């Protein structure tokens, strides 16, 4: 036990650096006991579970999102996941290890899709999970018939059976209509993907047959679609619904992007109908783990032993009708931290909820681009690295390297950090100036970001920095 904790600690800090070694030595001297993670040590058998009222499934409050799987490092750009690095193969060995550890600590909900990780996620998930007893976990996958080529009935059905094959199973525990509410016209898109081709009926039939144990939908975007599907709840009997929820979107989703819906509305609509909610983007693609220093300070003052990310998960877990919070974990230390948060989950007090609302206001005021790097927009046909550009922009805001005018006291430093960092994180030919405003990406964005407009905003900022006209 002591050994494990030491190893984990080293991993967390980037093992092998002199600095880490020194820190280690320091800690060792201070208290020979080496309980370095304090209360944060996840405790086996302490996972918090929620019960699905429809099937009685006992679902772990932490769900494993298979959307940001690790890739073999030497072939990949630093820090890339399977969704970004095209050439790099998924690091199956690491996926297996993480899945094993997750199951060991009680995680039993695994969420994938035919389109994740450039279409490689289901297969990797199948390989990792087939090494465990089928009844020791719940599998969630989706009808991801986004491309018009997959709209015909037989194509969508083919996609469904392919999921079964890739996942090496003959039933799906949780099946979703994937990301309804997207597209130029959400209702029209819904009709084309699920009604005109009879796929919704097909899925309902499969539920009858037991091939699908729970049927639900994941929703982003046009609230009309959400309201419509819920209005027909009596007919379809949704077993669960997957929504985007976190302490920033709770009140601010609409302010951030006018077309989005506040998470409190979505959650309350589900709670009213006793439909369990599966939470996606509890961390906003890591943005809520990666906050400006002053916010880190505030959080650490209250909970010095807990990570910044833990606040976001505790927020979701505090709501009783949340079935599970999905976390797309790329690295073992993501998993370790999440396990520590959920084994067991300590709900937030009212006072802590108020504190997070205050934090949400501060994050909202940063005026970030609300990109979660989910990569749904990618690949851009013109080669842009859309999430890379937005992530860099947000990073500069977060790190205080976003100049408002050339009169800012540290303008030269900020300018250099923005421009040099830009070239480092995004190759020149993939930068914002190459966006031709074709708009192919916009319909795919679950956050409803007007991507071309934002590209122009980033580009204009870059031009001002370069031309010295800020």
């Amino acid at each position: 036990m002591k050994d494990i904790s030491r190893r984990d600690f080293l991993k967390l800090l980037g093992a092998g650096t002199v600095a880490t070694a020194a820190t280690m030595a320091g800690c060792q001297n201070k208290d020979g006991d080496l309980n370095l993670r304090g209360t944060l040590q996840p405790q086996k058998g302490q996972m918090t579970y929620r019960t699905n009222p429809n099937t009685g499934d006992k679902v772990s409050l932490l769900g494993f999102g298979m959307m940001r799987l690790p890739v073999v490092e030497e072939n990949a750009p630093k820090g890339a996941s399977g969704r970004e690095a095209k050439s790099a193969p998924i690091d199956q060995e690491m996926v297996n290890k993480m899945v094993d550890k997750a199951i060991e600590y009680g995680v039993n909900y695994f969420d994938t899709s035919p389109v994740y990780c450039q279409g490689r996620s289901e297969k990797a998930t199948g390989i990792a999970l087939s090494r465990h007893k089928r009844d020791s976990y719940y599998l969630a996958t989706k009808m991801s018939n986004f491309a018009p080529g997959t709209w015909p009935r037989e194509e969508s059905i083919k996609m469904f059976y392919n999921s079964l094959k890739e996942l090496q199973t003959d039933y799906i525990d949780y099946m979703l209509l994937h990301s309804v509410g997207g597209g130029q016209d959400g209702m029209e898109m819904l009709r084309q993907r699920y009604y005109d081709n009879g796929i919704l009926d097909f899925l309902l039939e499969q539920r009858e047959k037991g091939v699908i144990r729970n049927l639900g939908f994941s929703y982003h975007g046009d609230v009309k679609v959400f309201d419509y599907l819920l209005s027909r709840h009596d007919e379809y009997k949704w077993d669960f619904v997957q929504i985007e929820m976190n302490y920033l979107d709770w009140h601010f989703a609409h302010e951030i992007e006018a077309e989005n819906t506040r998470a409190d509305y979505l959650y309350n609509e589900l709670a009213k109908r006793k439909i369990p909610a599966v939470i996606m983007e509890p961390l906003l693609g890591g943005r809520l783990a990666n906050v400006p220093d002053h916010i880190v300070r505030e959080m650490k003052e209250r909970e010095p032993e807990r990570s910044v990310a833990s606040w976001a998960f505790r927020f979701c877990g505090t709501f009783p009708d949340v079935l599970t919070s999905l976390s797309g974990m790329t690295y073992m230390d993501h998993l370790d931290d999440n396990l520590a948060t959920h084994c067991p989950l300590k709900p937030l007090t009212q006072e802590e909820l108020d504190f997070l609302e205050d934090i949400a206001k501060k994050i909202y005021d940063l005026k970030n681009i609300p990109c979660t790097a989910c990569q749904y927009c990618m690949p851009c046909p013109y080669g842009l690295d859309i999430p890379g550009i937005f992530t860099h922009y947000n990073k500069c805001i977060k790190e205080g390297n976003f100049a408002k005018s050339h009169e800012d006291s540290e303008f030269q430093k900020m300018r250099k950090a923005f421009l040099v960092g830009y070239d480092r994180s995004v190759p020149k030919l993939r930068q914002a100036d190459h966006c031709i405003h074709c708009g192919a990406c916009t319909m795919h964005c679950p956050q409803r970001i007007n991507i071309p407009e934002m590209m122009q905003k980033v580009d204009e900022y870059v031009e001002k920095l370069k031309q010295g006209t800020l």
Partner: protein
Amino acid sequence: MNKKTLQRIRRVLAAIFFLGITLMFLDFTGTLHKFLAWMAKAQFLPAVLALNFIVIALLLILTLLFGRIYCSVICPLGVFQDGVAHVHNWAKKNRHTFSKAHNILRYIMLGLFVVLLIAGVNSVAVLLAPYSAYGRMVQSLLGPIYQWCNNGLAALSEHFHSYAFYTKEVWMRSLPTFIVAAVTFVVIVILAWRNGRTYCNNICPVGTFLSFFSRFSWFKMHINEEKCIKCGLCTKNCKSSCIDGENGFVDYSRCVTCGNCMAACPKGAIEFKHAAAKPAPVETFHETSLQTDENGNKMGKTETVDTSKRAFLIGSAVAIGTAAFAQEKKKVDGGLAAIEDKVTPVRTVPIVPAGAGSLQHFRTHCTGCQLCVSQCPNDVLRPSTELLHLMQPVMSYERGWCRPECTACSDVCPTGAIRKLLKEEKAVTKKGQAYWISQNCLVVADGISCGNCARHCPAMAIEMVPKRGDATGRLLIPAINETRCIGCGACEYVCPARPLSAIVVEGVEQQRTI
């Protein structure tokens, strides 16, 4: 005066000039040239081409006072040769011998050089020119090494989250120029290794020109016959092979006032002083005019732009280039689309940097030293591969465009080929004209709306107008206002059509303010 003082002063000054110029060529951050550009402007041939009379006068006065000290202090190629010879001296001391001046050879070289310059065949003439030869060597051979080292540091600084260094892409700008630089390097090193300043004595047109003045310089090396023991050490240490110690003769036309003989003389018999010396037997000096500029302009034959030729070239461009990368059907999430490299379009008239004035002026003044190429932060400038204008910089927009805030090339150009411009002047200088190639345009070829050229034009020269015959009325094509276009290439660079842009800039014969 200590017998080694002159040598020491010379070495210190030479080191300052040599390192300064070398570093200026290597530095791509635009920092050093602010402090060091004067070193390039102090070079003789560039000053002549720039009609920089002050520098010319100062250099001539310097020569008339101290002899060809220019060659051993200011000229980087001269110092480079001294360095090479010096290394050989460690292995083999006292190895030089006296040789007679090869006057016929060097006058032919000088004459040829002047004729070629006047005739506007700069590409051949500048092969002989010392400063630009050195510049090409640094830019083509040492530059990449320097940039790789920098990139190593950039990777380190990225690792430590510092922004102190940034990566500079290393790429082959022109193979012919690289080969010329490499051959020059090998030849110069071999000559300098074997016999010191063979190049300076026989080939260098600047050296030969200065020799006309150095013969009459006020201060000179004198061998004091009374002290001299005829040991011959001065001869053996003269890398210019210009001291005949046996006969007490110094050829002042080749002496570069390096002071090595003084330092070597065991008896202190060599003095650097003014004395009523008997002039060395030389032929009378015929004035040779180097006023290339005045002649050059008149010489210029106006190249007419053949529009039918352009039409042909643009047509062939279409044949090679597909409109754009096929828009892959997006089925899964993530990944990056492959980006095809752009190819350099065949430009009927080359684009030369703003400040060049006319193409004619540019071509007759540029010595192809590559200083501007080494300074261009946007990877726009590269040496021409066209035989007649080999090594002279031209612009192309595959890797970047000529940005409005940058005047690096005009700041550094020592020859006046690119005249100094203010940012504001540059922004209104027309150096090219954009043309739309409809077949390549995504709007025409694929029916996609774009407008990226118009969005990025800093001169507001492009407006998107409805495409005729488009029933939807939504497709807009670029309309270029010729009177506003400055030829900066922003449109060409950001155009999504690959490998050939759908909007391509042609140079103009005569740059002008719009």
